[in-house]
């Protein structure tokens, strides 16, 4: 317990040390969250586009069938 409180106090330099660790954690975790969200959005977009494209092909095939 004493060791943990000594580490947390960091002999007077605690704001600088914890600010360094907080900055690194925030940036690295932020990157992970942003990249995961972008991947999820990209998957959603591509599946919508593919569904739309398939729908259009079906519509065209139905249209051609109707004319003949």
């Amino acid at each position, binding site marked *: 317990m004493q060791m943990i409180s000594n580490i947390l106090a960091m*002999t007077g330099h605690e704001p600088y040390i914890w600010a*360094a660790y907080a*900055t690194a954690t925030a940036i690295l975790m932020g*990157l992970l969250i942003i990249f995961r969200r*972008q991947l999820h959005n990209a998957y959603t977009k591509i599946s919508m*586009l593919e569904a*739309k494209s398939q729908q259009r092909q079906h519509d065209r095939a139905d249209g051609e069938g109707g004319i003949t």
Partner: protein
Amino acid sequence: MIKQYANPARFNRLAGTLLPWLAWPAGLLILTGLYFGLFNSPPDYQQGNTVRIMYVHVPSAWMALFIYTFMAISSAVGLIWKHPLAHLSAQAAAPIGACFTFICLVTGSLWGKTMWGTWWVWDARLTSVLILFFLYLGFIALHSAFDNPTRGERSAAILGIVGIINLPIIKFSVDWWNTLHQPASVLKMSGPTIHASMLTPLLIMGFGFTLYFFSLLLLRMRTLMISRRARAINVAQSHRLGAE
């Protein structure tokens, strides 16, 4: 052999298999490094506990240099052999490299304030790392500056290759010029001059950051690949609509 992974479906499968094998060990290594660095390493006899900033500052600096080297090699492979994944991996690596460089600058500044009494000095090491950060930003900006993505890729690749001249300047700046920054104590020809109790967490953090970088790289490459496919479908659809 590498060319077969230019196929998006195959690359996606490989990336999906590799990701957990990279991400979980990365997390474990970083947590272990943090435990050793914060609780199991001694304070420095001159700097006291402030030396603990080193466990994020130094690995971030290594990553900033490593990722730029990776980016420049990928750019060269893309330009010379025109491998489809090369430009993509360089593009994916750039923001990660910029973030590691930014962490290096911020943590260095915090360390400098406690040790030198100032946030910033225009000395050779600090200035050359700031230039590296701008090179990353320039690479990212050039990629998206052109309507034609191929032109953007080529221009960014040239900047990436030319910018590699900055890496030896960063590495040897502390030997070539008088600087406030301390000289190398780990990556030295004569071996590290740092005690094992501090070197161990430093190396563990370095490995952890490297695995974390490759995890982020795979995530980003997958996103870029899917976005390219989406763009291609969009273009094909608009051409088809135009023809109709």
